[in-house]
């Protein structure tokens, strides 16, 4: 008897919950028009998934479109393909895929679903063996001008008063190299302006991975002990090793990709890609063109930077004292209008007046 009673109570509870919820589920029947498929993590990963999701959400809510996100069952291309298909099954017209992990997957689905539009962030579709690259007409890729973000960070660090800098890259892939060389160029420019080029030095190293390891931490601790004041930690989870070393040494770190200031008190600023902005921009263009990619985007790759407000430093969580937000804004405008030229070359190190110690 007690069991029946408790069951009834549970059902009542459940139904009342149901009644509360009903209100905001008005548009479910036709599925979800804009879909985000996460690479493997969740939409609160403080990285690509989250940035892209914020963009999707903002655009869809502003324009009253249905949207939702999907997470693959496992970390494999096949699972991502499967999840993209599921999103399409559920009515997706546009599928946003953040991260290079989707390169193979998009390659596979773009021709299968030619009436669905794909937006690939930070990658270009290719076969699993990298033999063939192809971006179909219903796909648009977005890459970022990492060198601009790196430049801003390097410039800010020197202006803030740091003289001994470090650059910790993940792997020497183009995106990371652009960040690094941009950082060096920015530091150089600031040093020359201040006339302290002789004092500023950069230690520069790719650790070879995107996962935190004790080796990285040891090496970073060494840098800090040698006098390095701030390190630009550029790649995935390696910032964890870097902030750990910084916390122990009482030194500073610069974050990457998104505003990482909440991760550690040692992070003074972050060289950001504004993923949300870029997603909103792309989706706006898409819908302006009636739901398909306009000719200048269709099958093409855009490289977005300061002009599109897709790179930058976080002004909302500004913590630097000597280098102010206003100074930053001035600098940003110069980058934006092209009066500051930043090289995006990745084949050779930029020639600069400051000392750069490239380590292996």
């Amino acid at each position, binding site marked *: 008897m007690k069991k029946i009673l408790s069951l009834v109570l*549970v059902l009542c509870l*459940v*139904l009342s*919950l*149901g009644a509360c*919820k*009903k209100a905001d*589920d008005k548009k*479910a029947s036709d599925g*979800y028009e804009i*879909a985000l498929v996460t690479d493997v993590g*969740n939409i609160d990963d403080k990285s690509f998934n989250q940035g892209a999701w914020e963009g999707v959400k903002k655009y869809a809510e502003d324009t009253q479109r249905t949207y*939702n*996100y*999907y*997470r693959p*069952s*496992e*970390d*494999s*291309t*096949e*699972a991502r*393909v*499967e*999840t993209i*298909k*599921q*999103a399409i099954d*559920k009515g997706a017209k546009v599928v946003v895929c953040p991260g*290079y*992990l989707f390169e*193979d997957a998009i390659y596979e689905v773009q021709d299968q679903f030619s009436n669905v539009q794909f937006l690939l962030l930070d990658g270009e579709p290719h076969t*699993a*063996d*990298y033999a063939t690259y192809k971006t179909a007409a219903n796909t648009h890729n977005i890459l970022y001008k990492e060198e601009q973000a790196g430049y801003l960070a390097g410039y800010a660090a020197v202006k803030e008063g740091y003289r001994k800098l470090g650059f910790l890259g993940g*792997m020497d*892939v183009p995106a990371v190299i652009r960040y690094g060389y941009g950082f060096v160029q920015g530091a150089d420019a600031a040093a020359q302006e201040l006339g302290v080029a002789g004092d500023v030095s950069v230690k520069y190293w790719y650790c*070879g*991975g*995107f*996962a935190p390891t004790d080796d990285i931490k040891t090496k970073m601790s060494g840098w800090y002990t040698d006098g390095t004041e701030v390190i630009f930690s550029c790649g995935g989870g390696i910032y964890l090793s870097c902030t750990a070393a910084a916390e122990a040494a009482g030194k500073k770190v610069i974050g990457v990709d998104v505003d990482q200031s909440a991760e550690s008190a040692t992070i003074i600023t972050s060289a950001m890609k504004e993923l949300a902005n870029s997603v909103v921009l792309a989706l706006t263009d898409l819908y302006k063109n009636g739901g398909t990619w306009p000719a200048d985007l269709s099958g093409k790759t855009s490289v977005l930077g300061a002009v599109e407000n897709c790179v930058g430093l976080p002004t909302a969580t500004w913590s630097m004292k000597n280098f102010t937000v206003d100074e930053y804004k001035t600098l940003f405008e110069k980058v934006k209008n092209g009066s500051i030229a930043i090289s995006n070359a990745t084949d050779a190190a930029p020639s600069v007046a400051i000392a750069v110690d490239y380590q292996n």
Partner: protein
Amino acid sequence: MKNFFKSKTFISILASVLSIVAGLIIGFILLIVFNPPYALGGLKSIATAGFSRADKLAKVLYQAAPLIMTGLSVGFAFKTGLFNIGATGQYTVGAFCALVCGIQFQLPWWVCILAAMIGGAIWGFIPGICKALFNVNEVITSIMFNWLGLFMVNLCINNMPKMLADFWGASNKDRTGALASANPSAIIPKAGLDKLLGSNYMNISIFLTIGIAILIYVILEKMTFGYELKACGFNKDASIYAGINAKRNIVLSMVISGALAGIGGGIYYLSGTAQYTIVKSLLSMGFNGIPVALLGASSPIGIIFAAIFISYIQVGGEALQPEYAKEIIDIIIAVIIYLSAFSLLVKNILGRFFKGDTSNVNDEGAAAIKAAPVAVPAGEKSGESAGEPVGVPVGEPAGEPAPGDTGEKAVPVSDADVNKEEGGDQ
């Protein structure tokens, strides 16, 4: 027919079905709690998604194959009185050996699977030998070996440049190279099944694993070797008394159990779709072998169906997106699987309900779970002379607590007094 309804097989099947139903009901309640308007559709998609399309079916079979192997691994150990909680470690090491053969040494797929088998066997051998020689509980050793296996594999892969994806053209090195670019001959043949079902997931591994399950069935049920292994599992002392080398059999059980899990790891990563990712958490495929084995009542044939079922539920669960978040789906799937594993308990209850022979129902999980007190069972003769159904789930006579009672006998009077009634009937 009447006998069939009282048979152990029937009770086992019924128990599993009832547990599944119970799991689905609780799952449904959770669906209602998390997102009421979609609950019914959600339940429907759990129940039907797996067979709704050919490529979904392919996914079911793709996931079922390694599950069958880890289920067999755990179930085989149960049958022989061991609790192999180390299936996940053996699975990982098996996967590693397969990938090393496939990527580093560029060997064909069947050699890779043999390597996976050997790798898993070695990882089972060590807990086995510790148990046999030093009487170290295999649960503890194999849990430690799960982590040892995981980190050893991560360490090795990290230090084998040729194994990593970036060697084969990719930009990342947090995972092994895709077999498609590294060594297509290491991918398990698809035999046209991928075209038939329209999914890259599909290959012949499901048939391979079913074959292995049947082989295990034959070993356990038809061979002297299986007879010895089971005897050791049921009663080690009696098997020693019968001249069986119990220590050798413990080691062999763990070796075979490990080999089975190792093959599971091999076939999963040789499917060509999965890449081993360097993470710091144990792979769930190995642990999922435990509910598979419990649901399948440790019977190799039952395990085939249990694995397909659990895989089916997982595919069905994925279909709940996006109305339910992935995390919630994982909870719902886990609840269903968890309750399904209660089949052992249900079986005991059913056994009493049918007044049948409950003696054997606790064998498989006995190593794992101290289930409800197993009655000293009554004899049974086609319904004509059930003995005294002693061991009803009642407390102690005289209302005393039974602190010293280990729960195996709830007989109020002499246990030597168990029915001899049928003796009188004859």
